[in-house]
């Protein structure tokens, strides 16, 4: 009985750990997409056209997260 309880607890901890790791991975992926979007649109923003830069930023961020995250 003790052994099976321990096994159940270990399984739950593992599942929890995997879930947390998955969340972390997704979060890191989103941040990676954000940095890439900034890299691509900063040259446009530096030219002064913030609106246009933002439209591109949102588009590339959405595409990146849909593709890789």
């Amino acid at each position: 009985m003790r052994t099976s309880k321990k096994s159940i607890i270990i399984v739950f901890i593992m599942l929890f750990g995997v879930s947390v790791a998955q969340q972390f991975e997704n979060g890191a992926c989103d941040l990676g997409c954000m940095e890439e979007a900034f890299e691509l649109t900063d040259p446009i923003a530096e030219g002064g056209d913030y609106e246009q830069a933002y439209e591109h930023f949102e588009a590339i961020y959405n595409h990146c997260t849909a593709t890789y995250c």
Partner: protein
Amino acid sequence: MKNKHKFIMYFFAIALSLISCISEQENSTEKENLANELIEAKKELKSELDKKENPITTIMESYKKSNILAKNTNFEENLQFDLENSYLRMSENLKLVGSGKLSNDDFYNDVNGAFQSESGFKTDLGKKISIYYKEKYLQKKAEKGETNSYAYEKFKKIQELKKEIKNYEDE
């Protein structure tokens, strides 16, 4: 007298070093504050963006459903390939826009080159994405609408903060 002169010189040298040190410390603190503000603004922007529906995901899901009968064993793989191909080609085109080699009109005419003969797409997903962005751009152009959202305000703030940080780095 000589010792007195020496003392005064050393005193001024130390005082100037201290003043320079304090000034650098203040600059460093100010730069740190800006960097922290930048991190916060990026978090807020990400939070705003993640609240909205992702149009690319919607287009892909819709395309999957409409092709449910045409599915072959490689359908899912082909879709993922096309998503990645579309993203890479769109990124390349954006680099050209950023360097002034491609106009916005030309970019939005075909964001990922899906309508070019050698686009490499395996399904029509690329074209769906291209059409979506073209229509969105033309609609906004026709309405002459201004971007007005919390996410856009955060984006502007981030650009301003980046400029300020760059000014500190250039000093």
